[in-house]
């Protein structure tokens, strides 16, 4: 009886709306970033072009910048006074800052290094001759991508997806700067935990933190397992 009541109490303190928003944001970020990161990773792994170093540095930048600095610049870039913010408003009638759309756009930017890096390493590990062998065997570039590159790079792609998903669930600084804390729109689980901790609501903060920990762990575990099994198949 006591156990049932404690579980009910734990469920009651969780901000389900914030959790759902976080899950939506993490899934949308991972899905949208997948093709973009694959394209960037292949480009950086196999091509040599001018300003390659600058592009790589720009992609890695979110890794070293304080989230508040990144958030500040994104706020400037997405704001109503910015060309991007104005174009978005003209197109959709909505603002880019303090909205889910803006949060998603920011999430794509701050997750770039987490998505591109593991993929780039995976694609770079595929010997050039293996791709060339596919071409001389008659496979088109697209067939080579689907049947040779993708299965061989899959562990890196899976790792990238897991990292992106887990990192989005936990991101705090950028989310707060760009999205604020609007319930149902930009208030993610990480911000809900912060709010509860600030209000000395320890049981809610602890419950949601444990849930986030478990979710992140399962996400990473699932995707890396999937990566291994695809390679073994």
């Amino acid at each position, binding site marked *: 009886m006591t156990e049932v009541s404690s579980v009910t109490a734990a469920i009651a303190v969780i901000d389900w709306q914030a959790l759902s928003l976080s899950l939506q944001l993490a899934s949308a970020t991972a899905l949208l970033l997948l093709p973009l990161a694959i394209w960037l990773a292949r480009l950086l792994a196999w091509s040599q072009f001018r300003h390659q170093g600058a592009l790589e540095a720009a992609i890695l930048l979110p890794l070293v910048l304080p989230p508040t600095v990144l958030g500040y610049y994104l706020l400037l870039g997405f704001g109503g006074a910015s060309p991007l913010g104005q174009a978005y408003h003209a197109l959709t009638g909505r603002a880019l800052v303090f909205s889910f759309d803006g949060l998603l756009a920011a999430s794509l930017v701050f997750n770039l290094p987490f998505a591109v890096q593991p993929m780039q390493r995976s694609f770079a590990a595929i010997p050039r001759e*293996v791709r*060339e062998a596919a*071409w*001389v*065997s008659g496979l088109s570039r697209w067939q080579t991508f689907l049947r040779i590159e993708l*299965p*061989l790079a899959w562990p890196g792609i899976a790792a990238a997806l897991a990292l992106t998903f887990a990192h989005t669930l936990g991101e705090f600084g950028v989310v707060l700067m760009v999205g604020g804390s609007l319930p149902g729109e930009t208030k993610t689980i990480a911000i809900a935990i912060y709010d509860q901790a600030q209000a000395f609501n320890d049981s809610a903060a602890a419950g949601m933190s444990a849930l986030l920990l478990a979710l992140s762990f399962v996400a990473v575990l699932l995707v890396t397992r999937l990566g291994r099994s695809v390679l073994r198949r």
Partner: protein
Amino acid sequence: MKLVARLEQSAPIPLAADIACDSGELLALVGPSGSGKSTILRCLAGLHRPAGGSVRCGDETWFDAVRGVEVTPQRRRVGFVFQHYALFPHLSALANVMLALQHLPAPERAAKARHWLARSKLEGLEDRRPAELSGGQQQRVAIARALAREPQVLLLDEPFSAVDQVTRRKLLRQLIEMRRSLAIPIILVTHDLEEAALLADRMTVLHHGYTLQTAPPDELLARPASVLVARLTDQPNIFFGKVIEQSPATDTTLIDWLGKPLQACYHAGPVVGDRVCWVVPEAGVILVRDHQAERENTFTATVSERLAWRGHATVSARLGEGQGRDATLSFAIGTAVAQRRGIVSGARIVLQLQKAAICLTAGDRTSGSQFGH
């Protein structure tokens, strides 16, 4: 079906190569590392675009820099065996071969792939991945995959370099057997001259991307077009001398070598007084008995080294009296003969240089004139 190519570029590796290979012919490209052998194969397969030249296979033009023609690797129908085989590591041997059967309807591919694997003596290994196969088996999968494409040209890039010596001999024998049934041009890149001599109908010697000479292996060794070719084909007996007599009537070119006259067959070109380079293959140096020393081109020598391997001995012998008038000749005999004749270090012997085997050759191709007038 004949493959004819002229390839030109200045970077990243300079190329000025002419390649011609007939149906059923095996042409070996030999040369040191960095001589452009593999780049030539990549150009033929469409994996590298040279700055200039053309590639034609039968009636088809695969590449023509002037006309702007460039056929993709997918449409060239080339069988390519890569140096480290480049098998698809995530796929079984069967699936590796099936991928090269894109030209067949999907339901026919598995049976055809099994056929090609069986021809490469790989029955029972169809489901194994490359990592579960030995080096020799991987090479056979790579050959099966290359042939499954039913190619118009077969390109082999150092296919024996990644296997041990014993496997290499087996695979060489299999390749010799297999090529009899192939009526397409086959181009083999190798840095192993013995392998090239064993397999090839003709050999092309490359240096810094230039094709220096193309000839059947025996002819290439007996008649190198230049001292560079002689050096690149590992000829041990390369010497210089001065022409002292030209006599077409007696089919003789007389050379002053180490202060003694040396008879070669008549070579048009050099004139009396020219400094020339001449080579004699190991097989053109004969060990003779003392009483036969009156023969032409005989020299007394001292054995300096004897290296024996599998019944054959390579002997180095020193000729002359020093003061710049000496040289080391290399020749080969059976170890049993060497034993019987007491060919040990320090032994005095008489050697005859066969007149017909002596070849006068041009100096370095960059030296300008063919012979040093």
